[in-house]
């Protein structure tokens, strides 16, 4: 899928249970999940929304207008990607 410019996937702060269901369906390896910290790797996300659908608790939201003005947690560690 083509990488679009704006990030439109939003993780509602404080709501996540850190279960990893979203990570399991993410085709772009664009979600970083630590013990109690989750963030989207903006450079990889294509806004495909699979994580939004998969989330059992509606923690992830799709905002077509972009999320740059919403408070969020940035990823800490970017692993090197092998498959491009």
């Amino acid at each position, binding site marked *: 899928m083509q990488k679009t410019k704006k990030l439109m996937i939003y993780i509602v702060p404080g709501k996540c249970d850190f279960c990893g269901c979203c990570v399991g369906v993410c085709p772009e390896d664009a979600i970083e999940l630590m013990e109690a910290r989750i963030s989207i790797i903006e450079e990889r996300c294509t806004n495909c929304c699979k994580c939004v*659908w998969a989330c059992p608790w509606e923690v992830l939201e799709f905002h077509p207008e972009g999320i740059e003005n919403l408070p969020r947690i940035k990823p800490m*560690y970017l692993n090197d990607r092998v498959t491009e």
Partner: protein
Amino acid sequence: MLKDYYDIIVVGAGPAGTTAARYASIGGASVLVLEKDRDVGYPVRCGEAVSHEGIAQFIKPDPKWIATTVKRFRLFAPNGKQVIPKLDGIGYILERRIFDYELAKIAAGYGATIITKAYAYDLIRDSSGNAIGVKALIKDKECNINCKVVIGADGVESRVGRWVGIDTVCSIHDMESCAQVTISGIELEDDCLDFYFGSNVAPGGYLWVFPKGKNSANVGLGISVDEAKKKSAIRYLEEFLKRTFPGASILTQISGGVPCARTCSPLVKNNVMLVGDAAHQVNPVSGGGITSGMIGGMLAGEVAAEALKQNNLSYLEEYERLWKKRAGWKHEIYYRIKETISKFTDKDLNRIAEAVQTLPEEKQTLGAIFRSALWNHPSLLVEIAKIFVG
């Protein structure tokens, strides 16, 4: 003290990871297990049901991690009709936080090193792309640890496989989006597992009520993400609780994902092996993954230790062959059954339940349910037959 080299690094200390660590240690390898959470066994992300025969091959059943012993189960069709199939063996509802701890203790007892709050975020690779170590954030400190083999036991959220180009992404059709509560202050039959089916209860999956003692239970459900697109798992669960257990106290509320898919392939690449949910070693019909993950862990641990002993890492590939022979072939059949069942309408399910109910009680077995399903859907047989002809 953490060393800078171990023969094998296992990422993830769930049942699959610690079982891999245990058998690799028995085989003579030095093993490090990295667990991203601060506790082994917590948070629990599981319905906690296992069969006696599945679990007893790895650990002697012990009351300290068994919440309840179950002897029967009930299936509820969409119209509320019950089928109570006769069962041979018994099952257990586990206390996973204690169970996982015990498995970790066994692995540690054989010499494996286990550390928590250790988040693996990348591999160290040689010039040909083979894994020769793991980069991890251990108690907030960046560490590079070398090894010869990496075993990815990092669950549904697995990324270890992706780092060597193994496709571990689960399709939204196969991923079950799950929500569960542990409730108390209810009355139920504590020797019985209840399963509810139907498009109003859990479309593309099922809802479970698993007793934990006389007045407590795990109530949860999984629905295909295909369906969760329209309405999320937590909404279905809230509706069921309101109808069935109004006023119950909710002691724990968790979410989770279960990859009810075919086993990943390859299972081994560039000195990385995958086990458990990370490898999609889950029974695609039931969503159960404890026993099959432990089988995967045992095989991977044994093969890895043997490969190191032979100083021949190409032997690692033997693991995939052994997995297929031991459990993978069954999972392939279960996957085809799941694919057919997932097309059943509520009417189909009601009809199957009614057909089984007409049988004398002692003949109401899982086999009878299956035969009735076949009678209504001969295509089920075709799907299963396909596996034998390739």
